[in-house]
């Protein structure tokens, strides 16, 4: 159950401060309203997004051990807002936690910087905002904070691969419902869950520069399926998914040869709307796929 005040070592990731700045802004606003204090890890580095691990596994492990060590210096649990950060960091953490000799080897270089990653230090955890919201903040408390229930808003969840697979690495043994948390949050905010085929599939982003057609076919198919299932919008805890589902949506529409035009919200934006924040403060006017429809559904007036 939720504690009164939550403070977290906050890793915003690269994309939330790059091509999806509305995510970073809306997270700050929503954290403030929920009473979650964000202690930003401004010296931390990129998680590597799986690409650095593909190049040199030890390099990726050490870079993320550095981020964990910076978080541990604060004595707080760590929070991220990106499925890809979650998956890439969990992968490295799993290897680091598996073997003390390997951890000591990685810590050699960190010790020169006054840093050290220690397994389970102060019960260290690294959770996406979605996990934190359900497991630490609590759905009952979230429900009690709702000012503007998302009544009548039909929301399709889109998780991002890195936060749902592989299950064994991502703590599903302890938290078996992590692959239905988005549905739980949508419901707690008063919205309607839309079931469609793509909720736990791949947005295609990782291969967008390598095989544009494969990538955009994935994004376009999922957006189209959600539209066909009656969704007013999608919600995602992953800014990389957002890039392919929103920023690339007009291009994806060409690849799947149909009209799309479905708003894609970042998770903090959806929460923020229910907490009574204005769409503009949440950066919703900056999306490529217009979010006007969501605003109209919620306010009943044409935006």
């Amino acid at each position, binding site marked *: 159950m939720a504690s009164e005040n939550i403070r977290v070592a906050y890793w915003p990731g690269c994309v939330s401060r*790059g091509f999806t700045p509305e995510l970073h802004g809306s997270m700050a606003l929503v954290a403030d309203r929920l009473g979650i204090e964000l202690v930003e890890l401004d010296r931390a580095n990129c998680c590597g997004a799986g690409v650095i691990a*593909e190049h040199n596994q030890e390099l990726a492990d050490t870079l993320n051990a*550095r981020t964990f060590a910076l978080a541990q210096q604060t004595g707080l649990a760590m929070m991220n807002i990106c499925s890809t950060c979650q998956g890439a960091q969990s992968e490295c953490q799993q290897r680091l936690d598996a073997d003390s000799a390997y951890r000591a080897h990685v810590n050699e270089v960190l010790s020169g910087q006054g840093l050290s990653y220690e397994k389970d230090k102060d019960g260290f955890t690294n959770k996406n905002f979605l996990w934190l919201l359900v497991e630490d903040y609590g759905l009952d408390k979230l429900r009690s904070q709702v000012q503007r229930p998302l009544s009548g808003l039909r929301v399709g969840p889109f998780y991002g691969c890195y936060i749902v697979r*592989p299950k064994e690495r991502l703590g599903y043994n302890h938290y078996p419902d992590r692959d239905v948390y988005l549905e739980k949050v949508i419901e707690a905010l008063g919205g309607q869950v839309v079931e469609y085929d793509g909720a736990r599939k791949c947005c295609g982003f990782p*291969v967008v520069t*390598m095989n544009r057609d*494969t990538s955009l076919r994935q994004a376009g198919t999922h957006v189209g399926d959600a539209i066909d299932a009656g969704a007013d919008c999608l919600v995602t805890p992953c800014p990389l998914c957002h890039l392919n589902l929103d920023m690339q949506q007009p291009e994806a529409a060409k690849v799947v040869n149909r009209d799309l035009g479905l708003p894609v919200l970042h998770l903090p934006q959806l929460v923020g709307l229910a907490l009574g924040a204005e769409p503009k403060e949440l950066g919703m006017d900056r999306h490529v796929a217009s979010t006007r429809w969501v605003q109209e559904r919620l306010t009943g007036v044409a935006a």
Partner: protein
Amino acid sequence: MAEYTIKVRRFQPESGEGPYWEEFNVDLDPSLSVLDGLLQAKDNEDGSLAVRCSCRAAICGSCGMKVNGQSTLGCKTQIGEAQEQANKMLAATGATAAEAGSPVRGEGEYAVAGVASDTPIVIEPMGNMPVVKDLITDMESTHWTKIRRVTPWLLPHGEPPEREYIVEPESMIDITQSMACIQCGACVSSCLSMEADPDFIGPAALAKAYRFVGDPRDAETHERLHDLADDPHGIYDCTHCFSCIDACPKGVAPMDQIMRLRRKAGEEGIDDPNSGHAHELAFVKIIEKKGTLDEAMLVQESYAPGIKGKLKPSMRGLRETIKSLPTILRPLRKRKVPLKKAIPGTHHKLPGGAQDEVRAIYAHAEEHSEEFNLYIKGEEGELAEVDVEKGIERSTVPAGEEADSGQ
């Protein structure tokens, strides 16, 4: 004993009809398998229900199927667990994996929906393959064709030895994970890249390719890697979705093998038509210089590596850059991304000496570039998952000492 309803996607080609759903009621212990449930339905209700199986012990790899949408082996999935999964998904989403109609669920229904224990367990034939009959898929047209595509046999050079090839057991440890494959096709069934691009070589065949790339007896490693990188539907067509890792009943983790193929191809300096290697190098270099991602630089360097230095954009680079222009211009127009962020190279470094710390990590890791394979090493204090041969003890040996053994 408990009662279950299994809902099977059926297809009887001789009937001339399309596929349809049929429910069967079965009665068995929760610890028994989904396959046991199917065989009971076949025995008691409909002998024409077609399912391939043999060993019933996750060894033969015959009974690949989808249970509640998850690709797996029918014999390795306990029916009690499948029931729990079906209940959970219904409670959360208001729909079973089979339901296409009325997908929207109203407020307040959440708490009461789907708690009934008779939620059907949904069983379908494997994906990404043609269905021959009921749960039997055509493994030849996709799976075996793709396996043959990667030349799945040893290509040694020189005079063959008088008797067998002798290798150190340690030098084979690296490929034991890919050797664990039983060719069931569950990974192929689950592959999300193949869903979008049926030409993708795919997880099973690429895991098999690594089995030979990593084999010390094989003499054509470079040619194999070049071939797999040069195919536009090869190693750089994997979208990194982890589906095959969760689908594999034997812990092969095909995606991890694909990433190792990429790493080895990169180490051999092999460039590819998808610019996969260029993308990887650009990403790694940017983090060394900036600490966080300069996205504009990544896009530019992936398509046209070295444009600021030596200027060697390829035809593909130019073509892709032109194609990506609308994607860059739209957010600029919406003021989503400020102009500065769209210009490669303007991204800031980490503050106050932090960038030097990142550089020091690079210097350290590039000396070692050690791979820590959990499948082989296991978690400290636990028994290793594989022993190459009985008697090879491992697990708490310091990682540094073990690095030489087969990486």
